[in-house]
């Protein structure tokens, strides 16, 4: 038997204390296979050891939550016996090393998390952060990640309906690829991972096991350095064709009643799926690795237990149902093998070539995994209110902002994703939230992902609140009722007290906003150690959210629809310029306080706007966030190809802060003028701050009283121009 050396322990990412704990739990030295199993199960990625105590503080319950955190994905009740199942997950480290495969397998992994619970995936989103455009790797990474997401999602035939793309130098060495999958199931056909009962067959389905992705979870739990490129072989390789077959085969098997439990093999493959299923079921699991379908010859037990080969699932069947299940997988030409049995020992026992190579109590991998209360230092948030330069011409600034890397059209990206397959996409990318119809009904699910990392850097608490509030606002803005969120917490090294402080504050901020908005967190994922050579990313707690509308015919969109409409601004404009796009793009300043989020105002304003849409009184709505109201108005004008004229109203704020300030809780509505006064009166009565600030006009321009105007054609050229021009430029490497 291999003797474990301190060197091996370190190479497995375990500390001396953690290794001592393993010996104590086993009452002996671990075998080499056991060491590998502990290392992945105790990795940050699988164990959440740095964040677990903080994540417990998040609100996770509501009458419509059917399944909160802890399963493969969260589940909400959307009425009529239907359930919506969704989750967002990161694939950051692999995507930096190998962008196409990293992003593709990120999409595949999150889809499996959703369909393993019995849902058919109906929409994908993604939140992407890249380094600054001038960095030599950025273009190559954007191209590879976008191709990878499209390559996988398009083949699966699941529409990719939107997301975010941002650039910032803090991601130069560490991009973020967060993918979200939303699925649909019947409430009485939801599958969980608890392998209850002894003597039930444990079956392996899907692709064969190879040596790819060994120790992916451990890689995802370490910082990067210049040698990280050498980790390319730990990146998994995706096969969307097999995944499509796996999806259809699993749904076919799920239509029978043969399954007791099922779980996908994601991070840490066979190890985590078997340990988690046994743990949740309170049972033991015995595996015979000789039965595992293998792609390569002479694979060791260690290789098989740690492989992250894609497109695989583990299930526990009712005894005697093996033949029925095997027939389904034969039809779909997938591997199927009975590789083990559940026991009542609560131990994970792994046999290979007749020998027992691992025998450990499952609780040692789950409940007994280390949990750290890492020291943290909450630095005080930025408080400054930066001065704006009054010499900057308003309309020139608008043109520059709509053509800037973070604010320009993402058409270059989303046109590479099939966003209309499944014939239920009623709102395509480019709006506040995407809307996908619940097949065969008039109901719609609104989906969005949001976070403004620059706000989170200035103030992690307010910034995280803002991410939740913006997601909530985007869902209201299309006319859906926001129901629940999934969080994807991307941060640097939690062993640094200032980073841990960002994490703690951000979790507190998410919790505060979700509680106030009745918007529970039903699942999520943490990606820590997003650092390269000691440089951390901006704190990026991405929020994915889903809402429900009862009649998609009443959905609102951002596009102006009529000339002569009145423009109603809902919410208070104080002219908050700290951390604004204006300061960054026009004055090259990334300073100031993050905009404060008044959650009571968010709730009041959002519910007012949603009611107008639900009652069929508003069909044109846009939230005002990044870039402020003038940018939002320009986007509405471009989307509808209808001009607009506005002026300052209801406040004494100067033009630049009025039009480019990023105050929260605001919406812009375009409503037929005959109804505008009545709606404004109702806002007044409801105590909602509002102003009628202008009209849509026949002339195809954006015009601001006393400031000038700019043609939609020029705005469109700038807005649509940046991305294709950037991507077409010669590659630096």
């Amino acid at each position: 038997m291999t003797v474990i050396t301190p060197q091996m322990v370190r190479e497995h990412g375990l500390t001396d204390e953690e290794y001592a704990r393993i010996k104590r739990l086993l009452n002996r030295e671990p075998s080499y296979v056991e060491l590998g199993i502990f290392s992945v199960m105790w990795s940050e990625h699988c164990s959440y050891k740095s964040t677990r105590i903080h994540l417990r503080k998040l609100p996770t319950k509501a009458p419509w939550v059917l399944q909160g955190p802890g399963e493969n994905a969260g589940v909400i009740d959307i009425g009529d016996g239907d359930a919506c199942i969704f989750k967002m997950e990161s694939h950051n480290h692999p995507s930096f090393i190998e962008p196409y495969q990293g992003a593709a397998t990120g999409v595949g992994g999150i889809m499996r998390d959703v369909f393993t619970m019995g849902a058919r995936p109906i929409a994908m989103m993604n939140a992407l952060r890249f380094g600054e455009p001038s960095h030599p790797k950025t273009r190559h990474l954007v191209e590879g990640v976008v191709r990878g997401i499209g390559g996988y999602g398009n083949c699966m035939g699941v529409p990719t309906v939107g997301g975010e793309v941002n650039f910032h130098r803090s991601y130069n060495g560490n991009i973020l690829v967060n993918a979200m999958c939303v699925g649909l199931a019947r409430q009485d056909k939801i599958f969980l991972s608890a392998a209850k009962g002894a003597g039930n067959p444990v079956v392996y389905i899907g692709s064969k096991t190879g040596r790819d992705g060994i120790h992916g979870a451990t890689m995802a739990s370490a910082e990067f350095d210049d040698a990280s490129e050498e980790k390319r072989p730990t990146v998994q390789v995706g096969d969307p064709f097999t995944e499509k077959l796996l999806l259809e085969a699993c749904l076919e098997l799920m239509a029978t009643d043969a399954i007791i439990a099922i779980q996908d093999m994601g991070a840490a493959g066979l190890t985590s799926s078997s340990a988690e299923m046994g743990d949740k079921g309170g049972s033991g699991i015995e595996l015979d690795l000789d039965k595992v379908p293998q792609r390569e010859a002479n694979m060791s037990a260690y290789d098989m237990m740690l492989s992250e080969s894609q497109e695989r699932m583990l299930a526990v069947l009712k005894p005697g149902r093996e033949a029925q299940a095997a027939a389904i997988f034969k039809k779909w030409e997938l591997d199927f093998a009975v590789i083990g049995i559940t026991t009542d020992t609560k131990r994970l026992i792994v046999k290979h070539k007749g020998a027992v190579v691992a025998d450990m109590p499952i609780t040692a991998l789950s409940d007994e995994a280390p949990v750290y209360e890492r020291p943290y230092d909450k630095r005080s948030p930025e408080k400054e209110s930066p001065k704006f330069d009054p010499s900057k011409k308003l309309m020139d600034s608008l043109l520059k902002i709509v053509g800037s890397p973070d604010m320009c059209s993402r058409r270059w990206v989303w046109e590479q994703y099939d966003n209309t397959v499944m014939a239920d996409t009623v709102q395509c990318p480019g709006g506040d939230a995407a809307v996908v119809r619940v097949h065969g009904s008039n109901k719609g699910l609104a989906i969005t992902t949001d976070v403004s990392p620059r706000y989170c850097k200035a103030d992690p608490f307010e910034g995280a609140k803002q991410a939740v509030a913006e997601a909530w606002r985007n869902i209201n803005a299309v006319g859906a009722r926001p129901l629940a969120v999934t969080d994807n917490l991307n941060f640097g090294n939690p062993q640094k007290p200032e980073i841990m402080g960002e994490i703690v504050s951000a979790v507190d901020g998410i919790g505060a906003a979700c509680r106030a908005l009745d918007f529970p967190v039903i699942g999520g994922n943490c990606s820590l150690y997003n650092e390269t050579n000691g440089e951390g990313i901006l704190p990026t707690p991405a929020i994915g959210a889903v809402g429900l509308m009862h009649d998609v015919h009443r959905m609102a969109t951002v596009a102006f629809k009529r000339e002569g409409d009145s423009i109603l601004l809902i919410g208070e404009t104080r002219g908050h310029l700290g951390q604004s796009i204006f300061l960054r793009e026009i004055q090259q300043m990334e300073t100031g306080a993050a905009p404060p989020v008044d959650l009571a105002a968010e709730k009041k304003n959002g519910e007012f706007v949603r009611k107008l849409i639900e009652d069929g009184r508003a069909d044109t709505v846009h939230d005002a966030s990044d870039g402020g109201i003038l940018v939002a108005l320009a986007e509405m004008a471009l989307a509808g190809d209808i001009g607009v004229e506005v002026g300052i109203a209801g406040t004494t704020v100067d033009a630049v802060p009025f039009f480019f300030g990023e105050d929260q809780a605001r919406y812009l509505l375009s409503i037929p003028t005959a109804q505008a006064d009545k709606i404004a009166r109702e806002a007044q009565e409801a105590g909602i701050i509002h102003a009628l600030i202008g009209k849509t006009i026949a002339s195809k321009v954006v015009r601001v009283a006393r400031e000038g105007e700019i043609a939609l054609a020029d705005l469109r050229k700038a807005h649509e121009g940046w991305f294709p021009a950037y991507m077409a430029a010669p590659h630096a490497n």
Partner: protein
Amino acid sequence: MKSAVIVFPASNCDRDAQVALKQMTGQDPHMVWHQDAVLPDVDLVLLPGGFSYGDYLRCGAMASQSRIMREVKAHAEKGGAVLGICNGFQVLTETHLLPGALMRNADLKFVCRPVGLEVQETQSAFTRKYSNGQKLSFPVAHGDGNYVADDETLNRLEGENRVVFRYAAGDNPNGSARDIAGILNEKRNVLGLMPHPERVVDPLLGGTDGQAMFESLIEALS
């Protein structure tokens, strides 16, 4: 009109085609698995979009060799109508039911967006309810829709009025020769096109320009 939709492994517009046919004809189409040996007695066979067999070889190449395609060919040879959309068009060229080939898009990128089309030919079972020169908007969603053929074939297609749809001027999404978006076979009972008519039969989904294709088929085949 009785219809069948062929389902290959990793077809992914099969359900969309099924829903559109149900909506337009009032009848459920037969969903026919690629390993089936028999084609039901139908008026129209639809080859749907997707990534049959993963399309890791040339798109449609594996599907063209599948068992059910022998039956589809026989159906076409007897004069039965066959409609191939997107991957279905690729399968039809690989099967040689239609001439030419579909190569990678000229810019090497997958493209999904509504494109302008112009109806070039209304003398067919697929297009009789359109008018000549009519402008349509259908979505495309493909990585390999760049239609190529030698000049002789292209001239012949045009000379025999077998180019049914062209991309509107300046809106060719893939570099197709002569802006070709859809073509007929010689007997005019097989149509292949890259854009997706089945995604534009519901006003909520960006238009109803696809309805007339199904109405044409119902009129011609019922």
